[in-house]
C-alpha cells in the first residue's frame, strides 16, 4: 500500500516535467524550438529547400494561386460556422438565413465574409488561369493543367450549389432556369437534370442534394485536387520558365523568403476580405415564390455572360459555347507545344502584339454585333427564316467566329501556336466580359437600359 501512494505522489509531483516531456516529445533532446520543428516537418515538406529569385518576385505569378487557396480556406472556416445555424429545408432555409442575419452574434459578418471570399475565389481562379495560359506555363505540364481546370470547375460548382441554399427568389429562379438549360444538352441533359434536382422540379430534394454537394462532396474534391495540384508543381520543377539565364536564377532559401511572402499575402487577403465584409453586408432577396419570378430575374454576376448568351439562343449559350470553351481549354497544352517564351508574359513581342490587336478587334466586333442585333429585333427578323437561324446568327456565334478568325490570323502572322491560341482566348475573354456588362445593364423584361437611364418601376 505504501508503494502505491508513494508512486502516486511521485507521479503527481512530477506532473509539470512529465507534461512537458509527454506533450512535446523530442524537445529536450534536440534543443530546437517548437517553431523550427514545425517548420522542418511541414513547411519544408511542401516547399523546396531553395527557390530562384524569380519565384520571389510579385510580377512572376501575382500570387494568384496563394490568393485562391486563402479564399478557399476562409470559405471552409466561415462555411462550417454558418452550418451551425443554417437549416436545409424549404420551409426553414429562408428563416434560418434571416436568423443568421439578425439573431446570431457576428452572423452578418461571417455570412458576408463567406460571400465575398467566394467572389474573390472565382476572380482569382480566373486570373490565375489567364496568367498560366499567357505564360505558356502549361507547357510540359498537361496533367497539372487539367487538374487546375478541374479545380476551376469545382469552384464554379461550389458557387452554383451555394447560391441555392438561401432559398430566396434569386436562388430558386436561378436554379430553375439553369436546370431548364440542361434540356439543351444532347444525350445526357435530361438524365443529368433528373439527377441534379432529384426529380423534375426544384424542391426539397434539390435543396438537399445541393447542400450535400456544397458542404461535403465538392469541398472534398477540391481538397484532393488541391493536394495533387501543389504536389505536381513540385514534381514538375517549380514555376515554369525558359531554360535559365541571369540573376533571376540565383537560389535563395525558401524559408523565410518565399514562405513569409506567402504568409504575408494570405494575411493581407484575409485583412482585405474582412474589411469588406465588415463594411458591406451580403444581400438576402425576397422570400421565394415558386410560381412568379421577379422582374428582372438576373443570374449572379459570374453567370451573367451565360444568361446573356442564353437569351439569344438556349442551345448556343447552354451547350455549344460552354462545350467549346471546355474543349479549347482542355486541348490547349496538347495543341500548343512551343517552348519559346514560356514563363514570360505573353511570350514573345510578336505574340503580345497579336493578342493586343485581337483584344481591340474583339471590342469592336462586340459593339458591332450588339448594335446590329438590337436594331434587327431578334425574333421578328429571323422568324421569317425559320427557327434555326436565330440559333446560328447572334452575337454569341459571332464571338466564336471572331475568335477563330483572330486565332488563325495570329497564327499565320506570327507562325506561333501560342499566339494563335492566346489570341482566340483573349477574344473570348473580352467578349464574355462584354456580355457580362450588357447583362448588368438589362432591366425589367430583359430590356437593355444604359446605366444612366432609370429602370421603369414594375408595380
Amino acid at each position, binding site marked *: 500500500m505504501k508503494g502505491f501512494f508513494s508512486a502516486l505522489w511521485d507521479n503527481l509531483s512530477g506532473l509539470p516535467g512529465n507534461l512537458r516531456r509527454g506533450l512535446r516529445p523530442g524537445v529536450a533532446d534536440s534543443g530546437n524550438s517548437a517553431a523550427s520543428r514545425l517548420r522542418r516537418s511541414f513547411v519544408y515538406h511542401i516547399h523546396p529547400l531553395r527557390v530562384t529569385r524569380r519565384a520571389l518576385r510579385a510580377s512572376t505569378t501575382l500570387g494568384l494561386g496563394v490568393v485562391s487557396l486563402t479564399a478557399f480556406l476562409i470559405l471552409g472556416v466561415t462555411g462550417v460556422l454558418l452550418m451551425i445555424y443554417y437549416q436545409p429545408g424549404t420551409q426553414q432555409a429562408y428563416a434560418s438565413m434571416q436568423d443568421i442575419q439578425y439573431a446570431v452574434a457576428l452572423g452578418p459578418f461571417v455570412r458576408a465574409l463567406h460571400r465575398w471570399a467566394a467572389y474573390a475565389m472565382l476572380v482569382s481562379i480566373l486570373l490565375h488561369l489567364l496568367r498560366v495560359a499567357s505564360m505558356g506555363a502549361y507547357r510540359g505540364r498537361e496533367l497539372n493543367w487539367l487538374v487546375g481546370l478541374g479545380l476551376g470547375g469545382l469552384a464554379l460548382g461550389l458557387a452554383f450549389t451555394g447560391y441555392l441554399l438561401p432559398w430566396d427568389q434569386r436562388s430558386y429562379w436561378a436554379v*430553375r432556369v439553369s436546370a431548364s438549360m440542361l434540356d439543351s444538352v444532347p444525350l445526357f441533359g435530361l438524365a443529368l437534370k433528373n439527377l441534379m434536382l432529384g426529380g423534375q422540379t426544384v424542391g426539397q430534394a434539390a435543396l438537399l442534394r445541393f447542400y450535400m454537394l456544397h458542404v461535403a462532396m465538392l469541398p472534398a474534391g477540391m481538397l484532393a485536387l488541391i493536394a495533387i495540384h501543389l504536389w505536381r508543381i513540385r514534381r514538375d520543377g517549380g514555376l515554369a520558365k525558359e531554360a535559365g539565364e541571369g540573376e533571376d536564377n540565383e537560389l535563395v532559401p525558401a524559408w523565410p523568403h518565399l514562405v513569409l511572402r506567402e504568409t504575408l499575402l494570405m494575411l493581407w487577403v484575409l485583412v482585405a476580405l474582412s474589411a469588406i465584409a465588415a463594411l458591406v453586408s451580403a444581400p438576402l432577396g425576397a422570400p421565394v415564390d415558386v410560381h412568379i419570378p421577379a422582374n428582372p430575374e438576373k443570374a449572379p454576376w459570374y453567370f451573367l455572360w451565360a444568361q446573356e448568351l442564353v437569351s439569344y439562343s438556349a442551345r448556343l449559350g447552354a451547350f455549344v459555347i460552354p462545350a467549346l470553351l471546355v474543349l479549347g481549354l482542355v486541348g490547349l497544352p496538347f495543341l500548343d507545344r512551343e517552348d519559346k517564351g514560356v514563363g514570360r508574359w505573353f511570350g514573345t513581342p510578336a505574340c503580345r502584339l497579336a493578342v493586343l490587336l485581337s483584344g481591340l478587334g474583339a471590342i469592336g466586333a462586340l459593339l458591332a454585333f450588339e448594335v446590329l442585333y438590337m436594331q434587327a429585333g431578334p425574333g421578328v427578323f429571323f422568324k421569317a427564316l425559320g427557327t434555326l437561324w436565330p440559333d446560328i446568327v447572334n452575337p454569341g456565334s459571332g464571338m466564336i467566329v471572331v475568335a477563330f478568325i483572330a486565332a488563325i490570323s495570329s497564327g499565320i502572322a506570327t507562325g506561333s501556336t501560342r499566339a494563335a491560341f492566346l489570341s482566340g482566348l483573349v477574344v473570348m475573354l473580352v467578349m464574355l466580359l462584354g456580355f457580362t456588362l450588357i447583362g448588368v445593364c438589362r432591366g425589367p423584361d430583359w430590356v437593355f437600359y444604359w446605366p444612366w437611364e432609370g429602370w421603369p418601376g414594375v408595380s
Partner: protein
Amino acid sequence: MGNKDRAKDKGRVSSRRDFLALAGNVGVCACGLAAAGLGARLAVPELHDGPPHKFPVGPAADFVSGTLTWIRDREIFIVHDGDGFGAFSSRCTHLGCTVKRSTEGFYCPCHGASYDGRGRVMTGPARKDLPWYLTWVGSGGRVWVDTDRVVECGRKSANKERVTARDDEES
C-alpha cells in the same frame, strides 16, 4: 525465375506471381467501380415528385365563357370560349419562367420572349409554342387537364364532350 525469363522472351506474362498481381489489381479496380456504380444508382431518384399530371382544376361553371384563367399551382391557363375548354402551359418554352399577359397575348419577363393570344411564339429566344394539353369536362362537371397529353395549339373540348370512358374518373 528461370520460367519468368523464358516467358518474357516469348512476350507473355507467365508466372503465377504476375498473374495473381494482375488479377488482384483488376479485382480491386472492379470493386471500386462497383462501389461507384452503386453510389450513382442510389443517387438516381425513384420517386416521382410533384403533383399528378392528370388533375381537375375546378367546376366548369367557375370558368365563364370568354375568360382566361391562370391556375397558379399548376402553372397553366384555362381558356373557355364557344368551342369549349382548353388548357395551355404558362411556362415559357425558352427556360421555364412564368409568362405574363400582354396586349398581344403573353410575354416572358425573363428574356423577352413573346407569344400571341393562343400561345404561339412570336419573337424572342423561345422557339416552341406554349404547349396545349388535353382538356375535358368530367361527369361531375369538373374541368380536367392531362399534362402528359400534348395536343395541337388551340384544341378545345366542347362542354359536354367526353373524351374516352377511361378518362372520365369523376367520383
